[in-house]
């Protein structure tokens, strides 16, 4: 039994491919917990960042700097009454949020956090991720239709048209990245997520910078399409609050609504991790080509610890700036404790065995976090598109651009 558990730690396969069900289960639980924490953190971060972009403070009351606000919100949502409209279709209404959540979480089966840190490695990894995440549109349509109400139905119709349109541009961009994986001696490409990152490792370049500017254009197409695919601003027409109240989830409340919320953010993380895997080198550290060598490896391996120490320093600075009134005593101590935890994690990340194991996961998560920050930045910057403009961008700009990039990538792959 102990051998069974430790055998995975020495192997260079993912638990799913190695057939180690115990570790596969451990990874599933870890990913589930990590995602839930990430969604809760995103809730706080989004409100804070948006607030600072608009020169406001954002949540400040619950906990120091509003850090406990998402927990208060989650509690409120769980306690709230769960209302189902009397004219709704009960079965469909009931299953729609489940479907959305299940599809949003299932895609993480193949997300590679490191060469061995994934639940499994599928032969059809990218195809699986695109396919399963495209199923979430069904949940949205079901929710909109089952509510038996006008705004949700409009939201569902918009959402289905939008997601089907942008899926095509997305697929074309993905194909041009998959094409780049075939540029080796055998000429065999791969769809497996781990294989794609390994191809980038073998070619010593992130695919976003391959065949400049072709890779960058494909990445741009994907970046636009993924925002549309997750129904986020500026493509948030299905839930445009000034036009459709809340779009497809107008009639949902309480726990079911929070399931939609959870699914939206985990879908954002999922498409971001596709983008990171395909174009930003997955778990590779930055500058694999220009700055290679032992010294640089060492320098970059110190970054995770330093990042956490920096976060701890910011937290300690905020602790020092807390008001001195006795009312804030508990909050000050709490914030200081939080900073101490961050500092401890930072110090732990300098220990060589921990460092080597966690480095991949750190770089992957850092890139995904950057992509998530971009999402919030878009929301703070761009005004919402009109529906015909949205369709025009999808079909008349992104689709021809995608086909052009695909053809040019194929030509460049033959020539160079």
């Amino acid at each position, binding site marked *: 039994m102990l051998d069974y558990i430790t055998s995975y730690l020495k192997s260079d396969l993912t638990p799913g491919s190695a057939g180690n069900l115990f570790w596969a289960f451990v990874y599933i639980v870890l990913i589930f917990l990590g995602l839930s924490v990430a969604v809760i953190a995103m809730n706080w971060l989004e409100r804070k960042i948006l607030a600072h972009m608009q020169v406001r403070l954002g949540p400040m009351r619950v906990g120091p700097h509003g850090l406990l606000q998402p927990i208060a919100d989650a509690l409120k949502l769980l306690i709230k009454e769960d209302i189902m409209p009397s004219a709704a279709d009960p079965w*469909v209404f009931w299953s729609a949020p489940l479907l959305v959540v299940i599809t949003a979480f299932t895609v993480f089966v193949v997300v590679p956090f490191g060469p061995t840190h994934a639940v499994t490695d599928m*032969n*059809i990894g990218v*195809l699986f991720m695109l396919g399963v995440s495209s199923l979430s549109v069904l949940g949205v*349509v079901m929710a909109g239709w089952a509510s038996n109400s006008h705004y949700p139905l409009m939201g569902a*119709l918009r959402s*289905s048209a939008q997601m089907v349109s942008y899926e095509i541009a997305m697929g074309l961009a993905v194909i041009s990245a998959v094409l780049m994986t075939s540029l080796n001696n055998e000429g065999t490409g791969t769809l497996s997520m781990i294989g794609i990152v390994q191809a980038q490792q073998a070619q010593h370049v992130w695919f976003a910078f391959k065949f400049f500017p072709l890779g960058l254009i494909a990445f741009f197409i994907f970046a636009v399409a993924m925002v549309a695919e997750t129904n986020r601003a500026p493509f948030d027409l299905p839930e445009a609050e000034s036009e459709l109240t809340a779009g497809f989830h107008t009639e949902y409340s309480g726990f079911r609504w929070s399931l939609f919320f959870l699914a939206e953010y985990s879908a954002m993380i999922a498409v971001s991790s596709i983008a990171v895997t395909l174009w930003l080198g997955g778990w590779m550290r930055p500058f694999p080509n220009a700055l290679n060598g032992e010294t640089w490896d060492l320098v970059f391996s110190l970054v995770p610890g330093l990042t956490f120490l920096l976060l701890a320093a910011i937290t300690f600075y905020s602790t020092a700036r807390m008001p001195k009134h006795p009312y804030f005593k508990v909050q000050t101590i709490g914030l200081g404790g939080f900073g101490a935890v961050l500092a401890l994690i930072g110090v732990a990340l300098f220990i060589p065995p921990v460092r080597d194991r966690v480095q991949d996961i750190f770089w992957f998560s850092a890139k995904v976090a950057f992509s998530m920050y971009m999402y919030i930045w878009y929301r703070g910057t761009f005004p919402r598109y009109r529906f015909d403009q949205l369709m025009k961008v999808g079909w008349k700009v992104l689709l021809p651009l995608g086909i052009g990039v695909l053809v040019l990538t194929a030509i460049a792959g033959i020539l160079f």
Partner: protein
Amino acid sequence: MAPVATTFFFYFLSALTVLSGVLVITRKNAVHSALALIVSLLGQAALYLMLYAPFVAGVQIILYAGGIMVLFLFVIMLVSIEKAQKEEQFNQQWLVGLAAALALGALFVLVYVKGRALFPDRGILMPEQSNTQQVAVLLYGNYMFTFEIASLLLLVAIIGAVVMAKKRI
């Protein structure tokens, strides 16, 4: 890795597929039928995975469940179905349907009985790892011409759909 509990998964998935197939043709509400069909299609995709055809399973999920069925749902919502729901759902052809089903069933039983020798389980299990590459080599090698014709078919279908559905071209 070696497959786990093949028998259980086969019976579970095929029961799911067939039962939701029954729901497709018996539900009054077209949306319910479409949702049952999606379940059936996903069950089939899982059966493809059990048959070591991961690429076809992926295509099935992304094209059928994600693309075609969304089109169906979109159209069902576009043409209001409240009126259609109150009307008679079945036409008068149940006798013909029954006869056709019986004839087909008899045919299949005949094939099953006589064909045991025809379908031996020679069992060349496909190595799962290179399935996509093998499919690609065949698709862009032996079947290149067919592939081009398929693309032409899709072009015709796109134009046809636009001509049919647009009010003024």
